[in-house]
């Protein structure tokens, strides 16, 4: 009779496996934590449900409305306006005035209560990010926000982590474009690889990597 408290003999064959597990398991856990917790995994692709099914594909893409029609102060302010409801009503008093989708906007315009949009691009509170400091220096919308004109629902496409910020602050040239093309989503410096360097020199752009540039 075999003692129920003694491992059966076939267990002995698993002993080398335990050694392998000892190496693999911690590696797996570290890798899991690293990739699982990285902004690439947690933040990229963040696509919250918005209170109004506003389509950038339609407005920015097909209709070709410039970003700055709604986001008025993108080039001049630290924080950019999400448009107040009257901006929507400029057109929608005539276009689709009775659409059910626009009900929250009409209500907001009538009552003065804001529409509770959900923030997609959310930086930590200890980061003092200034929107104008980037847009007014020739960094296009697409550089951080991606092809918004192809997004039915706005999605975060970049990591927005400190490492990602620093990549550009250390080497801004690939992301620079002429100021007048700032909102052009499909523009690329094709055929002119030295444009970035020229723009940088012309506008005297020396992005700082000092801590107090963003943290104070």
């Amino acid at each position, binding site marked *: 009779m075999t003692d129920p408290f003694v491992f059966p003999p076939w267990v002995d064959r698993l002993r080398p496996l335990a050694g392998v597990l000892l190496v693999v398991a911690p590696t797996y856990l570290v890798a899991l934590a690293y990739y*699982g*917790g990285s902004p690439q995994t*947690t*933040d990229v692709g*963040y696509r*919250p449900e918005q209170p109004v099914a506003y389509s950038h594909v339609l407005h920015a893409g097909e209709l070709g409305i410039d970003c700055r029609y709604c986001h008025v*102060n993108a*080039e*001049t*302010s*630290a*924080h950019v*306006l*999400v*448009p*107040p*409801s*009257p901006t929507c009503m400029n057109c929608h008093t005539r276009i689709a005035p009775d659409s059910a989708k626009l009900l929250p906007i009409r209500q*907001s*315009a009538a*009552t*003065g*209560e*804001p*529409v*509770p*949009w*959900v*923030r997609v691009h*959310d930086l*930590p509170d*200890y980061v*003092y990010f*200034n929107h*104008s*400091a980037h847009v*007014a*220096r020739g960094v296009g919308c697409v550089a951080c926000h991606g092809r918004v004109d192809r997004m039915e629902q706005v999605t975060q496409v970049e990591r927005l982590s400190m490492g990602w910020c620093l990549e550009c602050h250390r080497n801004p040239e690939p992301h620079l474009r002429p100021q007048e093309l700032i909102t052009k989503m499909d523009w690329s410096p094709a055929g002119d690889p030295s444009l970035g360097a020229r723009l940088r020199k012309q*506008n005297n752009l020396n992005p*700082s990597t*000092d*801590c*107090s*540039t963003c*943290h*104070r």
Partner: protein
Amino acid sequence: MSSVNGLPGSNDSGIASARRVAQSLRDPELHALLEAEFPAADDPGGVSRRRWLQVMGASLMLGAAGGCRWKKEEILPLASQPPRRLPGEFQRFATARDIAGSALGLRVTSVDGRPIKIEGNPRHPQSLGATDAWTQASILELYDPDRSGSVLQRTGAEAMEQTWPKFLEFLRPQLAAIGKTQGAGLAVLSEASSSPTLAALRDRLLKAYPQAKWHEYEPLSHDNEREGARLAFGEPVRTHLALEKARVIVCLDADPLGVHPAAVRYARDFAKGRDPEAGPMNRLYVVEPCPTITGSVADHRLALRCGEVAWFARALHAAVVQGLGSKAEAATESGPDESPTAFVRAVAKDLKTHGAHVVVIAGPRQAPEVHALVHEINAALGSVGHVVAYTADPEPNRPRHVAAISSLVADMQAGKVQMLVMLGGNPVYDAPADLRFAEAMTKVPARLHLSPYDNETSLLCSWHLPRSHYLESWGDARGYDGTYSIIQPLIAPLHDSRTALELLALLAGEEKATGYDLVRVTFKELAGPEWETKWGSCLESGLLAGSAWPAASPRLVRETPPGDPGPQPGDGLPGPEQTEIVFCPGSGVYDGRFANNAWLQEMPDPMTKLTWDNAAWMSPATAKALGVDHGTLVRVNCGGREVEIPAYVMPGQAPGTVAVALGYGRAAAGKVGGDAGREVPPVGVDVYPLRTARALHFAADATVTPTGKPYALATTQEHHAIDAAAAAARGRRIGELVREFTLAEYEEESKRDPQFARHAGHLPELESLWEEPKYEGRRWGLTIDLSKCTGCGACMVACQAENNVPVVGKERVLRGRQMHWIRVDRYYRGEGESPRVVQQVVMCHHCENAPCEQVCPVAATVHSKEGLNDMVYNRCVGTRYCSNNCPYKVRRFNFFNYRKDLEEPENEVLKMVYNPEVTIRSRGVMEKCTYCVQRIQAAKIEAKNRREPIRDGQVLTACQQACPAGAIVFGDLGFRDDRGEPSLVAKLRRSARAYEMLAELNVKPRTSYLARIRNPNPELEG
């Protein structure tokens, strides 16, 4: 150049006094309390370890399941965008603030609809862009959770919450009854106010109710000045000084740079005459009983008892008006004390040799006769028209404040008052004690009190009416010079409150009138044609152009005023029963109205560096004669009334006098200043019980008896001591921290060596262990002019407001844990009872070779390319090595989470005071001055957005902007404008007076000091 001594006085008693504070800490109970770092954490209470692990494990699991992303955030765009209002963008609006009847023009910064920072209005002649500490701190008062939020009706001790409509229901029949008797029985007690609208409403009220009485009372009144002018000219004129034109200034118990309605402007004008590079220097003589800000910058200071200043004025009058060598001069010669007489002679001679560019100033404590004498002296010297100008008094027929409140009390006692309306003020607390105001007031059936706080007076009133803060109000005010400003609101009232104007309108039967309407009616009359256009420009610029009072030229009505000559300075000390008690305004709390402002309570007094307390100042000799030790309680008895107050041994205090600050010991101020109702002990000691209508300013017959009981005084002077005395204690020699020269030395030395101040300290051959960083492009730097700095403390509070610096409270100040990024060190120079005082502002020096950076194990403090010593809060783990290695001791550590109180729901409103551009630091993090890096970044981004360079003077640090004297200059040391001109700060750094503190350590500080230059009279200084 002689040496500088650090601790209170180089004399023995001073050093003994410093130690006595530490000894009092040996009181076992207090010590135990202070020792327990986390008293609340001693007993963790009911939860068992097992249960705790279970709960924590479960919440960890839940947290992990909830995902790694932080909280979902919403963006709520304004449903309709007000013009020019953008989220997160700073907006600036001009407004004004009236304190005790004089206005300061302001420009207030607002973000997302909430005001967060107050600056002076550069266009306003009383401000020129600067402010005082009180005004800086008034933003905290706006968001004070203790401000009263609703109308209260009291019957006995019971308070019932009411509303304004309910109050109106009460008021209407009362007014109807009073109207039948033409207003007999109605009395109004108002604070001093410069508002033309208030005056117009008062006139309308008195027209509607001709029998009604209007009284005005201020506990710290300038009535003596008015009455002095009445004696001299037959009419009460207001005196204005052009201090920038004065070559010799004599202050008789006056503090024009500290406590004066025009102090902010006067400090700037005075500082213009303290720069030897810019032109001839002025010379300041101060004769005063207790050390003041003005006294600390004097070239010669004579400590006289308050009652002896009249003797001095008379002697000076005799020497100046009747001429040297006359009979009066002979009388002066026979004066009992050699030193004051010699002082008078030297001052008189100096005044006469400088022609018309001189001025003598008397202070509000001195009797009208002294002011009359001063007017005559100024007239005889010819300074009227040059330095001195007069304007007509705006309210020539107003009775004296003390007479007004006395007559009100008499009326109330006689039962003649049916309804008493109090517009602000706190007479139950601050009326002269012998009037027994509270007792008389209870005889009035209807007692109405409009007040921002439910204070001592409100508690005894039948109706308490919440008053709006000036940042919530429409109103108007006039500066000391008469300049008219509109007070415009930055925010809608946070509570159900009204202004004094709106309440008066209710009384006058104009129930529908809003503050806005009332002010516009006045403005229309004042501005004349095209008033609508002027209204707009007045709101924008903050003042009505050309509205200052026109100059008056009153004529002296008589030659020599009679009156009691007053006591002469005697030999030695008076008897213990004849100690003179002098009342002065609290440096933070003024007359008590700012008692619930934590910033002002924690702002160290400029002279004692005392926080969260007042004390009885006495000179070392007086203390010795009375047998009093520093930091022990004494009993001060004055006419049978007695208070117990800690003693502070104060070099420079006149012998035989005791000075006490008013405004402390509040019983119903709030959670900060003391509230008996909520068992919050008062801050400091109330000395109003010693003050009588006859002796408002000083009394000569006080008795001081020691009790021997120790008392812990939280003074910051001995904290962070880095001077020679402190270094000697650590067995090390250091160079001169405060460098001071006479004008003659400066003139001689600067010719010999254009960098003589820098070379006045020992500078060894310096070699660095480290690779020294090279700086190209912008190099931020700062200079502080010790010749101009008065040590007033405005910079400290401005820094606190700008940089979200927490307050820590008395117990932690006692442990040296105050958080101010700026400190003002006080040094005594010279020996004896009355040494000279030098104030030195110290903040982070942003060393190029920063010792803090070299020891930080986590690189939480690192250098920027522009030379700023950055502090990265997220990296800081709180080793405090940096603070240890900082030679200037300017780093401050968050020993606790000083924001914990923000988590309480009733403090929600307090969150609105914080500057959103600066991180709120938490526990365990080091912090320090950043040179206002948020302002630098904002200016850099804005300039580059416009493709323009940053102009010199475009970036102002908060301390620089607030400084009334203009002593702080900040800028780019490498700056060159189009014409190749360097920045002002670069020029100052190359001045002959410039030096760096502790340069011998090779830390290469970016902050420089400009040596203090004194201009002594050779006759008085051998």
